[in-house]
């Protein structure tokens, strides 16, 4: 993991009981996790009365350092020993290391889910709806009598947050072909998971 000097400096401040007493340390740590993981976290996450005695610049600096480190650790799936080693290097005492690791462990799943959801991907199919019709005639052709399906795929775009739809019509044979191919895909998915 590549971490900048400012992260290290921030952590060294966090390690110092003169700067952050036990309570303040815990609060800041929790605030860091909260602002990353809680979608509704408001900007006043550092506004706790027990943090008022600390210089706001220091608070923000350490909060940023903690958040940066947490994201990097999550990205690389750091284990407890990696975390401990780094925190020891920043002169954390045993108690604070344990606290950090516990908080990290509690929030690990949410963190990894959040990180996994960031990124570009192809438009994602989320839903399908269908309509069955029986065609009787057009103005060019009478006595048609044939069933057709209208299928709509709901699609979600990751970057533009738009929800376009793809609609197409198909005959019964074509729908059978489509379903057959999707079933092949899901069978081979099943087989792959059994390997």
């Amino acid at each position: 993991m590549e971490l900048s000097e400012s992260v290290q400096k921030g952590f060294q401040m966090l390690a110092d009981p003169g700067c952050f007493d036990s309570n303040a340390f815990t609060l800041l740590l929790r605030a860091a996790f909260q602002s990353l993981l809680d979608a509704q976290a408001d900007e006043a996450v550092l506004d706790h009365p027990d943090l008022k005695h600390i210089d706001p610049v220091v608070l923000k600096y350490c909060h940023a350092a903690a958040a940066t480190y947490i994201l990097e650790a999550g990205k690389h799936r750091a284990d407890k020993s990696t975390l401990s080693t780094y925190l020891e290097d920043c002169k954390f005492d045993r108690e604070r290391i344990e606290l950090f690791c516990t908080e990290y462990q509690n929030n690990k799943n949410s963190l990894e889910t959040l990180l996994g959801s960031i990124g570009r991907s192809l438009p994602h199919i989320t839903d399908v709806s269908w309509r069955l019709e029986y065609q009787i005639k057009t103005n060019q052709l009478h006595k048609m009598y044939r069933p057709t399906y209208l299928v709509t795929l709901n699609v979600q775009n990751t970057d533009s947050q738009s929800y376009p739809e793809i609609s197409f019509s198909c005959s019964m044979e074509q729908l059978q072909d489509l379903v057959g191919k999707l079933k092949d895909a899901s069978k081979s998915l099943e087989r792959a998971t059994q390997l």
Partner: protein
Amino acid sequence: MLLELSEEHKEHLAFLPQVDSAVVAEFGRIAVEFLRRSANPKIYEGAARKLSVSSDAVQHGVEGLTYLLTESSKLMISELDFQDSVFVLGFSEELNKLLLQLYLDNRKEIRTILSELAPSLLSYHNLEWRLDVQLASRSLRQQIKPAVTIKLHLNQNGDHNTKVLQTDPATLLYLVQQLEQALEEMKTNHCRRVVRNIK
């Protein structure tokens, strides 16, 4: 249901008894060919010269035949109705039989061509799929995230369109389930009754 033939139409068709049946058969072939692709006026001139008639007469004859065939195919009239409709033209027995045969032989194809004139939406053509597993991304390493990538081929009025989409395994199973239900619908009593009774 009988075909209504206008006076003008009957005039155009009146040319047909003046030539022999081989020529009428040839006109029939030209008519269907013109429906498949577009009309080529040069053919009229060639035929006109060979038959020593005006190219207009040939053109009218072929067009009259074309209209007769397309209207009959569109309405899907029965053999009997076709014979009765043609009867009013006062052609010979042989010519009537020839026309009927022309109608029956080409009806299916003409109806396919006519169906392409209907307003059309994007229609399904083909589907290709691929199984992918995402192993890492810029924001998270050491992942195992399965996904199914799908290339959907669609057609609209001859334009080929492809869309590349993705879905996760759970949604794939859901899609299969939903679409299988759609296919099952045609076998229900309700749909069977409708199909039986609308003729």
